[in-house]
């Protein structure tokens, strides 16, 4: 073999390798619609009442995102008429946008609505806004976003939004056609919500945390009313309050199952929301295919709760609330600097609190001890950096202390 042959062979080899390793042809996949979830009319488009939330994508047992499963679920979702996909820069440790970009790539762009959000919490200078926005387009492999939100507005983030001229920039993007509809997601008091709505009169929708648990306790009702008064369509986030409403305690579950053994616990929460006017879509982070199937069932011919069902649901929620729990939604914005698995610990604690079986103590201790030592509650150094980041305004260090004490007590007993 002489040099020319060698080079030729190497080139062939490399080209082959590149082609094999995932060079897919650009072909638009056809969506075979098999069903249709209920939709609402927004401006001149129909939006599915069920939105595909990308803050909780399916995971492999190893903890990494199961991209293949997600692709299959996206296909199934599209086929069932789900056309609203809600990702964000920060979701899944910053991987969500890329993964959704790849999952949606095969389909015609006009067949789905893609939503993402400006992470104002991360802004350090005005140039960051444009840099992040362009990065998002690239990550999502798209030329435009249908819905675009200013992400997670609370007092501090709202200051950032104004300080770094986020709204003027996004308005420009709208003129350039890179954003179709502009809104914001809100995580603070009704007073601030009012202020934000009053500040800018071209908001087209608002994303609020509304669910049966937050309705009274964290002033969800007031926020809902403010949005209604401003005539803003509402996108509901955390309809299940981070799966809390899908996993009510045993007593509450029993009440619901006794009334209707067929309906899942989660379906009650969605149907409760369906009774409210002005809801554009409800975002559900479906981390397992079963969640998706159950939701498709609920949202096909979505019916609000009847008055009788409403009473049953109220009774079940009351039974559930008798036990103390931590209102963590596993959004993981807290990002503990020393690596304490805050959301994981709280979810274990909640499971323990809602579990009525005799095995609950053993279950709690063994699950807790399955956490890496460096991720456990006693590793918290009480620096408090998580507190301002928590959209649920939890006093995380104190709660971690409480969980760890519970663990020691349960273990000792």
């Amino acid at each position, binding site marked *: 073999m002489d040099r020319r042959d*060698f080079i030729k062979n190497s080139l062939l080899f490399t080209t082959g390798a590149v082609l094999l390793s995932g060079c897919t042809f650009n072909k638009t996949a056809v969506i075979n619609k098999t069903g249709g979830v209920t939709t609402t009319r927004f401006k001149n488009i129909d939006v599915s009442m069920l939105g595909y939330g990308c803050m909780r994508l399916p995971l492999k047992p190893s903890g990494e995102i199961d991209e293949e499963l997600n692709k299959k679920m996206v296909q199934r979702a599209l086929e069932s008429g789900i056309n609203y996909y809600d990702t964000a820069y920060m979701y899944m440790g910053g991987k969500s946008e890329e993964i959704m970009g790849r999952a949606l790539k095969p389909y015609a762009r006009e067949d789905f609505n893609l939503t993402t959000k400006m992470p104002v919490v991360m802004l350090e200078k005005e140039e960051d806004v444009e840099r992040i926005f362009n990065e998002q387009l690239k990550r999502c492999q798209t030329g435009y976003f249908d819905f675009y939100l200013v992400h997670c507005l609370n007092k501090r983030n709202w200051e950032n939004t104004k300080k770094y001229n986020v709204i003027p920039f996004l308005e420009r993007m709208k003129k350039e056609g890179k954003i179709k509809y502009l809104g914001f997601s809100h995580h603070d008091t009704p007073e601030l919500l009012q202020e934000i709505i009053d500040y800018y009169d071209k908001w087209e929708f608002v994303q609020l945390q509304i669910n049966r648990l937050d309705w009274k306790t964290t002033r969800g009702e007031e926020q809902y009313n403010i949005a209604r008064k401003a005539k803003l369509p509402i996108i509901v986030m955390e309809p299940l309050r981070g799966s809390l409403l899908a996993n009510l305690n045993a007593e509450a579950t029993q009440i619901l199952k006794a009334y209707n053994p067929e309906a899942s616990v989660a379906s009650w929460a969605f149907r409760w929301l369906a009774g409210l006017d002005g809801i554009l879509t409800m975002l559900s982070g479906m981390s397992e295919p079963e969640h998706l199937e159950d939701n498709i069932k609920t949202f096909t011919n979505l019916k609000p709760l009847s008055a009788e069902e409403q009473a049953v649901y109220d009774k079940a929620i009351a039974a559930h609330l008798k036990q103390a729990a931590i209102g963590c939604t596993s959004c993981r914005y807290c990002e503990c600097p020393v690596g304490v698995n805050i959301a994981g610990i709280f979810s274990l604690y909640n499971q323990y609190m809602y579990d009525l079986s005799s095995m609950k103590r053993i279950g709690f201790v063994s699950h807790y001890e399955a956490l890496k030592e460096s991720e456990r509650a006693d590793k918290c150094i009480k620096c408090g950096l998580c507190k301002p980041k928590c959209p649920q305004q939890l006093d995380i260090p104190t709660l971690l202390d409480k969980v760890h004490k519970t663990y020691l007590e349960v273990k000792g007993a």
Partner: protein
Amino acid sequence: MKFRGNKKPYLIRVTAAALFFAAEIFAFFPAGRFLTGLLSFNFAPAAARLITDFSITALLIVAANLLIAFFFGRFYCSVFCPFGLLQDIIGTIFRRKTGRTVNLPSLRYTILVITVVFMLAGVTSVLRFLDPYSNFGNIISGLINIKTVPVITFIPLLIIFLLVVWKNRIFCTMVCPAGTVLGLCSKLSPKKLCISKDICKGCGVCERECPTGAINSKEKYLDNERCIRCMRCIAACPGGGIRVFDTEKEKFVPSRRSFIISGIVAAAAAAVLVKGKELAIAIAEGLKPRPICPPGAGSIENFVSKCTNCGLCVEHCKGNVLKKPDSEYETVHVDFSDGKCEFDCKNCSDLCPTGAIRKMTLKDKQNCRIGLAKFNREICSKCGLCASKCPKGAISFTPGQLPVYNASECIGCGACQNICPVSAIEIVAINTQSQI
């Protein structure tokens, strides 16, 4: 050693090498701070820097090295490379003659390909075991800290000692990836050092003197790929038969076997490239407990996959908090038991030749959080010293009360831990460094 030929080139080269070697050692001492720039001329760390923390300077250094090797041969290895010079010294002491030695091109190419692929995958720390400069740095800083470092620090020294005693500078022609690259440049050059077939009488002195085994006196052939331009042969040749000639390009003819082997290596390499990031994380996760990293390292995963353990930062750390790998931590790490990370010092960021510690402005360094303070409020004596020493004003103190810690201002410099008389404060590692 008897030199019957033209001694001048050899003497010039030895003098230059001695000067560089002395300077390179001195650069590891605090007083030699002004000489540290010299170390960044080293080839492999500059190449690593292209990937880890790109700079035009690094690009120029790499280009200069390649061009010098192309036009003049591997002078880097005989004049500048501190690890090569260390081998020369050992070789001189033991008066070893190399004689004819094995030439294993496929081995050195395999090592080179693996190294390059690891580097492209972001795991430049592969140089920790292969790059001559990093090994030299590790040995020197190990010797400086001989009382505290574990014995395993000197394993590379032992290995290189044995290699030199066996076959002189065989490391440079069999293993060293930097040498392989420069060798290839030298091989491609039209100007080569050759043995004149007319003058040479085949006495074989040159072959015996050659430390890399690059000369075959019977066939009157000098392998420019392995020749490190030490000039010994020129000094030894009684007839002056070794000179620079223009030659034809050598034919590049790989055998079928080497072709198959290189294919396999390339495939393995591609696999590493794909899995590189995960590998780095796996390596970092193997490190328990997780150490505090110097400011600019990013995260422990990043640092472990980039640092080649040359120890230059350790020797120049003003606060004496950077420590070499020890029995507890397998990587360079921050330890506040002897001091604090000095607020106005950013030597580690300035000096790191591989870019494992990013270049930062002083302001960025002063806002770079590397850890957070954990207070043991039960044993606190409420003296308030921590508050007075905190350069960021992250601790406020009212006499008679517990100090109040504002973590959002804290960069984890260790000033509080260092001053606390009752050891109530401990700086703990964080997963990812951030600018506050």
